[in-house]
């Protein structure tokens, strides 16, 4: 693919089409968090009314809702997510900058693990189609898809931290030990889903005429699989990477919470519980942009892998 004019035009078109999506996201999130009962400064002990009023005035919460909305839009334009209501002296931008590297590390590792293991298991099962090994791995994969991470995580903690004592039960200190359990928990459904996807598409590809041609050419089976079958079989997996990112992000919200990891997900949950409007909106928007960007990358990857899809058609 060359960086020619139509490519630039395509990118511009794609970027422009993102704007309405983002506007919709901002609008929905903005009003949804405010619909939730309670407010950021509610606590068990009611604040004196003057203090409450002062606080609301400081954060412009006393203004009419629409005015707040447009004020927020204005801020977003200059990429300012505003101050956090709960973490005093912290802006949402700072909180995201602090939490994201942790979440990214866990998420990227889980994605990598999910892709590599999922693809290998799927190919292995496809090559031994309908054997005992195939049925058992696909059975496990079915389990992996259906068991929620809030069940897997405590089980893993019980096994490897409480009984085994090999790994910490939670916390985060940038060591591999603290990453293993959360990454595995997060990756498990991805591995399982990709394995099933890969097995199915590999079996389908192996039945196609061009694979028969490759075999008729006398190529070793290894080369037939790796050079001729792998690429087309990967296409469904590549298109799943977009939704997989979304699933990982949702998963990380729960997993970070369970393992007490100071990532974006933890901030998001804390923000939602505290009615920390700006923090919740900031994290949601940030994740929204991330998912859109990754889907875009996936589309590009797809068009590179499949010569029939020119990027004009994306």
């Amino acid at each position, binding site marked *: 693919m060359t960086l020619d004019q139509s490519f630039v035009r395509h990118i511009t078109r794609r970027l422009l089409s993102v704007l309405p999506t983002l506007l919709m996201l901002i609008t929905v999130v903005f009003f949804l968090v405010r619909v939730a009962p309670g407010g950021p400064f509610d606590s068990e002990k009611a604040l004196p009314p003057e203090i409450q009023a002062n606080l609301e005035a400081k954060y412009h919460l006393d203004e009419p809702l629409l005015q707040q909305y447009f004020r927020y839009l204005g801020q977003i334009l200059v990429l300012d997510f505003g101050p956090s209501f709960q973490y005093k002296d912290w802006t949402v931008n700072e909180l995201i900058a602090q939490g994201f590297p942790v979440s990214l590390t866990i998420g990227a590792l889980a994605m990598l693990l999910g892709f590599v293991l999922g693809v290998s298991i799927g190919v292995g099962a496809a090559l031994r189609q309908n054997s005992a090994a195939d049925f058992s791995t696909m059975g496990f994969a079915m389990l992996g898809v259906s068991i929620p991470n809030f069940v897997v995580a405590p089980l893993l903690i019980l096994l490897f931290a409480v009984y085994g004592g090999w790994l910490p039960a939670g916390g985060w200190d940038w060591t591999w030990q603290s990453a293993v359990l959360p990454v595995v928990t997060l990756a498990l459904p991805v591995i399982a889903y990709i394995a099933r996807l890969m097995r199915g598409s590999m079996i389908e590809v192996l039945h196609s005429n061009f694979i028969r041609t490759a075999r008729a*050419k*006398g190529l070793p089976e290894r080369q037939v699989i790796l050079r001729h079958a792998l690429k087309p079989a990967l296409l469904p997996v590549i298109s799943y990477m977009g939704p997989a990112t979304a699933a990982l992000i949702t998963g990380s919200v729960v997993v970070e919470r369970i393992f007490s990891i100071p990532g974006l997900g933890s901030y998001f949950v804390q923000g939602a519980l505290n009615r920390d409007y700006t923090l919740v909106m900031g994290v949601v928007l940030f994740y929204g942009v991330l998912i859109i960007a990754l889907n875009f990358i996936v589309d590009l990857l797809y068009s590179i892998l499949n*010569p029939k899809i020119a990027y004009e058609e994306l």
Partner: protein
Amino acid sequence: MPLLEVKDLHVRFETPEGEVHAVRGLDFTLEPGEGLAIVGESGSGKTQAMLAILGLLAENGTSGGQALYQGADLMAMEPHELNRHRGRDIAMIFQDPMTSLNPYLSIERQMVEVAMHHQGLSRREARVHAVEMLRAVRIPDPESRIRQYPHQFSGGMRQRILIAMGLLCEPDILIADEPTTALDVTVQAQIAGLVEEVVQRSGMAAILITHDLGVVAGVSDRVLVMYAGEMVEYGTVEQIYRSPRHPYTRGLIDSVPRLDRADDDALHAIPGNPPNMLSLPSGCCFRDRCSRAFEACAEAPELRDAGDGHLKRCHLEEAP
């Protein structure tokens, strides 16, 4: 020693409806440089017989018998041994050029890998060789078009590419499985002519699978007629055309439309359908469709020599 000797070839498929015995004891030989046409309706087992010889049957298929290439049994070989012959000594061209090339790889990669694998050429040498072959099958501007992908070529062009790919290693045997069937009528003649040309020029042996007796004459020395998984007639092109000895062959010849007979503009079809391969009738399989059937046909006929190596599987004494 014949180049290829097929002995008692059987192909069976497990299907949900039961076992299909698609090829039922096929014997034939192919001499170096000989052209053999295998003729029969769809489902007569002609393609499956060839796929079985090359170990390319679908997963639910099993094969039995022998296919001796220069004395070595292809069907008893380990995969890596068989791979030394596939593509190098025996090349096969398939029916559907639209799906027989890998859509995700450039023509260059698909051709170069054959030459590199079998002939030990460097990538550069292999590319030069591939371009040469593309030029030989008259792909215009092969140096630049070799970089393109299959979807950028028409069906006829793709079949040309597949032919060029098959010829890369100068095989001893070229098996062409209805290479023109899936193409537009307008390019069918071109491709048929091309196959004929490359076979004659290279002097290799060729097996042409077809359902159309009209296209046989150009490439073939001998014709093998198959019906319901069996050989029903075998002879030289002359014997088969001049004096067919099986009513089925007669029917096939009559069903080729003739433009040179102004008085006869009717299409002569063979009545009925091929038998259900799941439950073959007793006796001669062609009996139900045969206008010449008589009492003896209740018993399955053996293959008999009708003189000069002309074989027929029919109880009739005279020519139909």
